[in-house]
Structure formats: structure tokens, C-alpha cells
């Protein structure tokens, strides 16, 4: 189980690295689709059918919208060279040094906290969170629904669902406001 999951995650990492370095914007979007659909396979291997259905449809709609935005504008990536030749001596562009140092500093900082916290979790596949046994035993009688995830979403943690419906509504209003034509007189 761990081996199959590791192979799929390695494919996702390769796809993500190519998506950030492609010269053509359309190829970069297709590689972003590799990461999304690989995530669907991981959800199915981790026994979560609910999440897999939502992730497939949401990923497809996001890709369609991004392709429509890119096709109506330029398709090429911006060009910039790393090493510049002036009078026979080669200088490295200043932005690249700052970028590499910044990324290395962030990576070491986060790696330190990751190492400190990952050893509080048990081995993969045996970690039991504090509320899980209580939810699994009591949820069937107290809510009456056969699907435990729906029972938790609408009964035990109902305020999260209310907040999420509000966020979706606010996002739609925001998009309609940004793209409005210039106002009437």
C-alpha cells in the first residue's frame, strides 16, 4: 500500500516540476492536470469515494476556465537569461542569486519544524485521532444516517457547512463585481 502510494506521489512531483518550467503556457496547464488527476487516484486508494467525485469535477472545471483565459491572450512564457556576457566576462543576474538563497532559507526553516513534529505521529496507517472512536460508535444512532461523513458534515459540524456555503456565495458576487462593464450613467 505504501509502495503504490509513493509511486503515484512521485509522478505528481515530476508533473508539478515540469508545470513550473514549461516554455508554453498550454503545456503547463496540462501538467497541472496531471497533479489533479493523480490526487484522484490517491483518494481512491485511501478509501474516500466522496472526495474523489468532488475533486474530479472541480479539477475539470478549473482546467476549462484556465485554458479559456490563456487562449484569449498570449501563449508564450517570458524569456530571461541567467548568465549575461558583457565584454567577455560573464555575470550572473542578481535576481537569480536572491531567488536561490530565499528558497534554500525557507526550505531549511520548514524542514526543521517538519522533523520536530512528524515524530509525534504514529506509523502510517495506525494513527488514531482523539475523536475518531467516539464519532464512529455514536454517529449512527445519534444522527440516524448510514453515511458517516454526511452525518458529521450536517449534524456534528454543521457550522462549517454554513460557513462554506457563505464563502461560495461571496466568491460568486465578487467575480460578478470585478468583471462588470463600466457603470451606467
Amino acid at each position, binding site marked *: 500500500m505504501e509502495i503504490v502510494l509513493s509511486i503515484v506521489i512521485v509522478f505528481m512531483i515530476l508533473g508539478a516540476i515540469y508545470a513550473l518550467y514549461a516554455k508554453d503556457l498550454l503545456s503547463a496547464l496540462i501538467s497541472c492536470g496531471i497533479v*489533479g488527476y493523480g*490526487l484522484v487516484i*490517491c483518494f481512491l486508494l485511501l478509501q474516500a469515494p466522496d472526495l474523489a467525485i468532488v475533486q474530479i469535477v472541480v479539477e475539470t472545471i478549473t482546467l476549462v476556465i484556465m485554458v479559456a483565459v*490563456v487562449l484569449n491572450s498570449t501563449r508564450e512564457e517570458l524569456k530571461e537569461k541567467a548568465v549575461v556576457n558583457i565584454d567577455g566576462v560573464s555575470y550572473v543576474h542578481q535576481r537569480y542569486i536572491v531567488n536561490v538563497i530565499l528558497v534554500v532559507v525557507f526550505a531549511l526553516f520548514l524542514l526543521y519544524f517538519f522533523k520536530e513534529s512528524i515524530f509525534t505521529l504514529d506509523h502510517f496507517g495506525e494513527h488514531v485521532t482523539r475523536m*475518531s472512536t467516539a464519532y464512529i460508535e455514536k454517529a449512527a444512532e445519534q444522527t440516524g444516517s448510514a453515511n458517516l461523513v454526511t452525518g458529521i458534515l450536517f449534524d456534528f459540524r454543521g457550522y462549517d457547512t454554513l460557513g462554506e456555503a457563505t464563502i461560495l456565495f461571496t466568491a460568486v458576487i465578487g*467575480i460578478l463585481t470585478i468583471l462588470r462593464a463600466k457603470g451606467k450613467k
Partner: protein
Amino acid sequence: MIVYLLCFILFLVGLFGVLTKRNVIKIVIGLSVMEFSLFLFFALIGYIDKGIAPIIVQNIPNAKFVDPLPQAMVLTAIVIGLATNAMLLAIAIRLYKKYNTFDIRKINSLKG
């Protein structure tokens, strides 16, 4: 433990894309990859060995269920991620119509 480390590497790839790229579309792709790594991490924590999906069926009496609480949290987070991406793309459309480029270093008409 090695799956957790691979998931963290995916997060770092996305973070690198947000911090160092100049094209607005590449920044949106990097943010999207960061969110995917977080969904994967939550689903990995809730997995129990040889468990089945958390739905009660009549003819299987005593079954070991996978933890349902992280799945409920990720379900909310996927829809919120779509809303964020859509708003970023609406802003990108407006920027292209006004400045005719996707480069963030040339969008500086507030400077001065």
C-alpha cells in the same frame, strides 16, 4: 513515514513556484499545487490499515472504518480552493486587458 516526506516535497515545489516566478498564470498553478499537497496530507492522516470506506452496510457486521473526520474537512476545503482560484483568474483577466502582458514587474502604474 516516507509518504509524509514526499507530500512535504510537493508542498515545497508549490511554494517555490509562488515565490520565484514572474508570470501570473504560473503563480496560480503554484498555489494550486500547494493546496493539493495539503488535501493529500489530511487524507493520509486519517487512513487506518485494512479499513473500508465509512458507510454502514447491513450485511457486514463488524468492520473497521477509516477515520471520517479528516474527510469531512477536506470536502469543505476543495470547494473553497475552487473559489479562490476563480477570483485570482478574474483579476488576471482584468490585468491583461489593461496592461497587455502577464509580467508582474511591468504592472507598476501605482509606483512613484
